């Protein structure tokens, strides 16, 4: 089959992203309870502990982790089975490119990471949107055909969202665990 070249008066030159789009699929990740079960399947109970850190603790955690503490209050759940502590389950937030990412982090009793699960991340933008050059191109442009508006985007191919912010969040949680809960 022969390739064909087509010209289009497209809005701008840009990285195309392939995506799967269907309005039938509402975006909803695991609930807190489901994430607890997914990360600690053997746990019998999850005991909630609400922690409020003072300025001294906040400073220690920030110094040790190198990551800013935005919320001095947080919730953590002790995952237990037969009176034995399996580890701790945290729900935390970090900032994505535009909006908060809520995620769960499970830490084993020995202080190692057991798993991470994203709970809520509605940001469907690619990381590139925040790039100033990228935005510049778009100013004063209109959404002319042939592009169509679609909603409820699920799968984006070609996007390169970085998960670096979660890595930093996890670093902060590990130090929080060592400092306040261990």
């Amino acid at each position, binding site marked *: 089959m022969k390739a*064909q070249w*087509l010209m289009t008066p497209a809005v701008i030159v840009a990285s*195309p*992203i392939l995506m799967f789009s269907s309005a039938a699929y509402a975006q909803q990740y695991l609930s807190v309870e489901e994430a607890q079960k997914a990360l600690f399947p053997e746990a019998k109970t999850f005991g909630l502990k609400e922690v409020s850190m003072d300025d001294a603790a906040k400073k220690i955690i920030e110094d040790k982790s190198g990551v800013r503490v935005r919320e001095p209050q947080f919730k953590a759940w002790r995952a237990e089975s037969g009176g034995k502590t399996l580890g701790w389950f945290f729900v935390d937030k970090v900032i994505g490119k535009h909006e908060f990412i809520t995620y769960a982090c499970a830490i084993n009793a020995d202080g190692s990471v057991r798993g991470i699960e994203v709970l809520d991340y509605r940001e469907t933008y690619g990381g590139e949107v925040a790039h100033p050059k990228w935005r510049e191109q778009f100013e004063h442009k209109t959404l002319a055909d042939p*592009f169509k508006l679609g909603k409820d985007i699920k799968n984006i191919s070609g996007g390169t969202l970085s998960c670096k912010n979660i890595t930093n969040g996890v670093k902060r949680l590990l130090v929080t665990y060592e400092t306040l809960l261990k």
Partner: protein
Amino acid sequence: MNPLIRSRPLLGTFVEIWGVSDDRAGLIWAMNEAFDRIGHVQRLASYHDRDSELSAINRLRPGERVKIDPLTYDLLQGVDRLYRESGGLFDPTSAGRLLRHGFHSGVGELNVEVPYGTWEAIELCGELTVRVHEPLRIDLSGIAKGYAVDCAFDVMARRGIETFCVNAGGDLRLRSPGALPVALRHPLFPTLTAETIELSEGAVATSAGYFNTIIDEAGEKRIPLYNPLTHRTGIALRSATVIASECMIADALTKVVHADPDRAETIVRNLGARYVLLSGEGNDVQTRCSGGIRIAM
């Protein structure tokens, strides 16, 4: 029946898996296993992790051999197939040569430019053993993500899930009893789509390098996609999308399409795949594609 969608930070991006099943607990279990498999591939095949099996191979001296995990071996066999099918256009040993072009690549002792061999210098000896005949700097980032998606796909399929999709930051593979729309879209607005294709079983991958560009000696913007035959880096403002049966194939072929669109035509077709190449000039977008993909403009 609502689909379950989960997301975990893996492979340096967000990996999403969605699926539909009457048995929600079973679906969660299948996804746990699928995510774990991706994490396993990541640990084995990371170029930047000095404890990975790939780094162990990159440290081998000529004549030395090492025994590796079945998954790593399977991945290397996939690379070998794509290297041969592409006539050397897909060659993941270019990492060291990208250093010369001004792209940072590698960590520690591996981040040093020495004369490296091509894929011809690796020997898959059987019994999960590989041997190198020249120093090698293999970077599997152009294929490992697709391979990890395939591994997760296999887990979900084996667990009997009939409708699902695994999407690793843009490289995806899906299965569905009915065809699902996959839309080609403009990236500036997440809600902007150009045209759709229908897919009920298959993989899609896209490669572009807009935000890792350098200006070469001729003043042209280049991206770290390397043509091993011409020793040229890729042209910026181009994006290649490949639709194939497996995500590993789709992922690797996007690099072949970038490297040489003319030669890619036959290579892509021989592997039962299709491609869309978009390149921009001025205010226009040029679309080039294999037959079988309809692009309405």
